[in-house]
Each structure stands twice: as C-alpha cells, then as structure tokens.
C-alpha cells in the first residue's frame, strides 16, 4: 500500500548527469580542456607573442606601448613610424643607464616581416623561429597561434549565429506546423540549393572589406562580413532537427499539461519545449565548429576569406602548396589544423555519447 518513495538522493538534473558522464569520458573531456584552455590563452597572445613590448623604461619614465602607441622618435630612434623594440632592447641593455625593454616571451609579431635573417625567406626552422618563417619572412609559429584564435572565434561565431537562426526557424516550423511548416520548408530547400561558394565569390567581389592594421581581430569588419555570409548558409541543417524535436515534444503530455495550467504560448515554446529540444544542437555543435573552421580555411586558401595580412591558416596552407619544397610551410599549418580538428571531433564524440538518450529511457 505504499508508493515506495525512491531513496532521497541529491537532486540532479538530466543536464548535470550528462555533464558528469561527459567528464567520465576521458578522451573527450581532456580534449575539451586542451581546446578551451588553448583558446582562452590565445586571447592573451598580444602579451605572449608580439614585437611590441609589455613595458619600456626610458629616461626615467615608464611606457606601455601595447596600450598607447609610441612612435620611434620618442625612443631616440632615427626612423619614422614604428619603433624597432628588439633593437631598442639591445641598445638600452648595452648602454646600461637603468633603461630597459620588457618584450613578450616570443618577441615577433604576426604581421612582422623578418628580413634581416640569413638567406631569403622562407627561412627554415631555427632556435629563434622553431616553425621557420613564411615567404614574407613572418614567423610561422606566431602566425599559427594568432590564426588559431581567429579560426576558433570565427567558427564559434558562425555556429552561434547559424544555430540561433536555425533554432528560431525550426522552432516556429515545428510548433506552428501546417501551412507555415510546408511553405517554410520549401523556402529552406530553395535557399539551401543556392551555390554557397559562388555567392561568397560574388559578394566578396562587390564588398571588399578593409583590413585595419593593429585593430583587434573581433573588430575587423571583414570577419563579421564572413560570419554573416557563412551563417546565412549554415543554419538550414539544424532547422530540420529542431523542427522534428518540436513536432515530437509539442505532442507530449507535459506540454498539454503546461497549456492546461495557463502557461503562455511563448512560455510553452521557449521555456518548456526548447530545453527538451536542444540535444541535437549540443551534439552537432562540435562537428559544426569543425566544419566552420574548415570552411574558413578553404575560403582563405582560395583567397576569398579574410583579407591579407590577417594571420589565417588557409593562407598559410596556400603558401605551403606554392612552396612544396619548404616542408615547414606544409607540415606545421596542416598539422595544426589536423590536431585542432581531431581534438574537437573527440569532444563531439564524447558529447554525443553523454547525450545519448538510450541510457535514460530505462528510467521510464
């Protein structure tokens, strides 16, 4: 005659249980930590790899050129424009008047051509430049590092914008159904049959975004233009899944029960159904990020991506193809791309497994 109450456990949501399961899947979890860690560190790259020093002490006062631009003349260098801080460091150190320059650990900038190296660029790897330099004498390691940040940022933005659009469209199709669904789906089919690459080529021949030197990458209009274009062609896939999820979820009893208690339509759609419909979004997200990184690499490789001299992986891979004998221009960019994609695929695998509903269907 009892209702045999289940043992009182710490309340745990399904999401938290999935996160716990994800953390148990070591390969995916460690890949996640590595990728997220590297991405977070990459935001501090201007302090880690740059030809502009963190701090300068010159004639009794402190200068922070990363915050305020300083011209060469302020440090007594007889050139116009940017000071050569590496030369200044040597000069001040040998002069020994208490003046000093604190350079980042990797004292080379991503767009800085190092033309004073022996031989002609591209220069092979050396102790100073472990990954060598590219055909304009720019340090490959530094460019790869900056490129990682750009690739990840770009892929995350496209995935975010594309999914937001796809969820909104898919949710309305699935929730309202009927005519909206039929015409909406046909519209999506027409839109997806547009040849993506042609549209990108046409748009980039009309709008040529300017590269603002020294401006932070997130504020470059070229990046946002590409994000919008790619997201505009990226959102259709997820709508089918979200639409299906909404169709299935809206017929479930808890939705009827929520309607019967007087919850508003928006509340039903976004508070009740959406959290139950997000599984495909979460499981697909890592693979979408992979696809978007590759898409940017492909566009850069073809020359329709971010404008020069943005440090991008596609541009480096393109250099590798033009200089097949310079192995460091082939091996390192492709290796970096391969490693990144591999780690994200590991994450995706683990997410998919952690979100597998089969384990939970036993509970019903």
């Amino acid at each position, binding site marked *: *005659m009892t*209702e*045999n*109450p*289940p043992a*009182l*456990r710490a*309340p*745990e*949501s*399904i*999401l938290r249980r999935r996160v716990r399961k994800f953390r148990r899947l070591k390969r995916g979890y460690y890949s996640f930590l590595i990728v997220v860690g590297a991405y977070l560190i990459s935001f501090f790259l201007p302090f880690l790899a740059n030809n502009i020093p963190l701090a300068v002490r010159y004639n009794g006062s402190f200068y922070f050129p990363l915050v305020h631009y300083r011209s060469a003349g302020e440090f007594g260098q007889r050139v116009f424009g940017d000071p050569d801080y590496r030369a200044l460091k040597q000069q001040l150190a040998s002069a020994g008047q208490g003046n000093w320059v604190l350079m980042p650990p990797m004292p080379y900038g991503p767009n800085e051509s190092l033309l004073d190296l022996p031989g002609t660029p591209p220069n092979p790897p050396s102790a100073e430049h472990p990954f060598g330099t590219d055909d304009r004498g720019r340090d490959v390691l530094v460019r790869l590092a900056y490129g990682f940040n750009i690739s990840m940022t770009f892929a995350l933005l496209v995935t975010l914008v594309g999914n937001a659009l796809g969820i909104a469209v898919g949710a309305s199709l699935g929730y309202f*159904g*009927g005519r909206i669904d039929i015409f909406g789906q046909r519209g999506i089919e027409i839109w997806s049959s547009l040849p993506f690459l042609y549209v990108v080529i046409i748009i980039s021949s009309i709008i040529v975004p300017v590269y603002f030197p020294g401006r932070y990458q997130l504020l470059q209009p070229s990046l946002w233009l590409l994000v919008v274009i790619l997201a505009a062609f990226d959102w259709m896939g997820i709508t089918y899944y979200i639409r299906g999820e909404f169709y299935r979820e809206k*017929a*479930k*009893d*808890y939705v*009827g*029960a*929520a*309607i*019967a*208690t*007087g*919850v*508003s*339509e928006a*509340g039903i759609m976004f508070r*009740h159904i959406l*959290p*139950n419909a997000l599984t495909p979004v979460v499981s697909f997200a890592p693979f979408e990020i992979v696809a978007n990184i590759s898409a940017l690499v492909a566009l850069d490789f073809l020359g329709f991506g971010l404008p020069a001299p943005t440090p991008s992986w596609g541009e480096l891979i393109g250099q590798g193809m033009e200089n097949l004998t310079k192995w460091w221009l082939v091996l390192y960019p492709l290796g970096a791309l391969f490693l990144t994609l591999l780690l994200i695929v590991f994450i995706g695998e683990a997410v998919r497994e952690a979100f597998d509903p089969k384990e*939970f269907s036993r*509970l*019903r």
Partner: protein
Amino acid sequence: MNATASQGRPEGRPLLQIRGLRTYFYTESGVAKAVDGVDLDIAQGEVLGLVGESGSGKSVTALSILRLIPDPPGRIVAGEILYRGRDLLKLSRDDIREIRGNEISMVFQEPMTSLNPVFTIGMQVTEVIQAHEQVSRQEAYRRAVEILSEVGIPDPADRMKQYPHHFSGGQRQRVMIAIALVLNPSLLIADEPTTALDVTIQAQILDLMLEMKARRAGASILLITHNLAVVAETCDRVAVMYGGKIQEVASIDALFETPFHPYTVGLLGSIPSVETKARRLTVIPGSVPDILHLPVGCKFVTRCPYAFEPCPDIEPPLIEDAPGHWVRCHLYPHGGTPAVPLPEK
C-alpha cells in the same frame, strides 16, 4: 431538446453548462465526429462521472472544455460551454489562459510524462502560481511547499528541488494534483487519473482527490473514467457516453439500481459482483462503431439487443424519463416503462 433542464443535478446554479458541443476531427479519411452534440451540466460541489468506452468521446469532451483540442486536425464546430455564465468557446486566447489552471484545471492520465523532465518539481508548481498571480518568488515557493505537503508528499521542501525522474508514478500524480489545485480552482477535470497507476495506488489517488475537494468548499470534479467501480466509489452523478453523445445521466444510486439504457445495462452486466456468483459475465456483443461511419439513428443500434424499427434511422432524444434520470433511447417514451421489457438484473 429539453436537455437544458436540470439533468437531476443537486439544487443550485450549475457551475458549467455544456450545450450542443460538437468537436470534429478532420482527418484524411474523413470527418471523425468524436463529440456530436453533448449536453451536460456540472453543479457546484458535485463529483460528476463521465464514463464510456475508448473512443466514446469522453476525453475529447473534457479537452474541449479548456479548448485543448489540437487544431488541426480537431475543431470545436458548434455548441457553447458556459462557465459561470461566460462562454468559454468565445473567450480570447488570453482570457481562456486566465481560466486554465486558475479556475478550471486538469489532471491527465499519464503522470509519468505529464511533468517536464528538465525542470524541478518546485519550478513546475511555482510556475502555475506565477502564471496567474502577482506574487513574490518567496510567496510562490511557500505556497508550493504547502500544497505539496497537502497532497501527501513527504519532505516537501527537499522534494521541491528534485526532478520528475526522482518521483514514482503515484507521487507524480500527487504532484499533478497539487499543480491542478494550488490556485483553488472551482472545477477539476480528471481525465482517467488512475488508469496508468498501480491498483494499490488508484484508491489512494481517488481518496486524495475527494479529500482535497472536501477542503475546498464548492469545488466540483469531472471524473472521466471507463471504470465503473471508480465511479461507484467516488461520484454523485454519472453521465454515460457512447458514440459521441450522452446516452444516460442519473444519480449514482439510480444508475446502479435501475439502469435505463441498454448500453448501461450491458456495462453493468460486464463487471463482476459478489452477488452474481458463478454466472458468466455478460458481454456487449460487437465493438464500438467506426467513428468515421457512425449509425444515422441511435449510435448503439449495431450492438443493441432490443433494437427495433425506428432505431437505425431516427436518433432518440435525451429525455427525462424519471425525475433526474435522463436517457437517450426509443425504449423510453412512457414514463419509466420500457416498450420492450429488459431482462431481470
């Protein structure tokens, strides 16, 4: 067409009056007339049972009251549902939403799937309160704990933080009742609330519903079930549905003592009782008619052992054949005496 009269309910203004309700489903194979002219009164403070086989239209009637019919394919094509004099079918979406959960609430058949799996029990109880009343979170929380303890959930404050999958079926149905009753509605529609539960728990849930009703003066319950034993235990009055129409309405005693309609007779004959010891249970021959092709006349004509000349062609009206005892059958035009004698009970 005299059905607007009292239908034998207790004295007082009816809380809910259903008049000529027709709810059709437009499917690819035709129009399914799930509810085809239902008249029903629910009085203040009564427990009305609505019984019938699967497909008789009893659930659709209940869903129509709160306008929960999925459209498409379903649509309420005619009728009115007067709740305290207001026609629920003419209210705006916002107005009907104010009624739902607040004045009329519903408990569904499947407690295992009626709660949203991603929210805690507490969130789901407080959501109803906050959807209808301007109260602080603390106040909503306090009332949620209170109602959970009232429906018999042990340690309600702790269980508020738990998710539906931590609750057993019976407990989830208690939570559903708590959600339905937290705002003290005047009508609770219970759509087969015990069908999905263990037999041992069914009685507990029914007792709980009656107990909760007793604490709320004037609250009514519309109990939808196919289980006549449940009806006998809990209801004041019973309406029997068949083929999308009310076939018989009577007080619980009258219906079990002297059932009028041959269908009701058949239903009562098909449940075992202590008195009818070794005899075989009687079975209603045939099966429920195809809802797309209901008979023109009496809906029960295909299975009725007493069917005679007018039955296949003319639909009998719902008449009050004894005080408070309504029946829709050609056998009863003569004040309580059927034209063809019914078998001994």
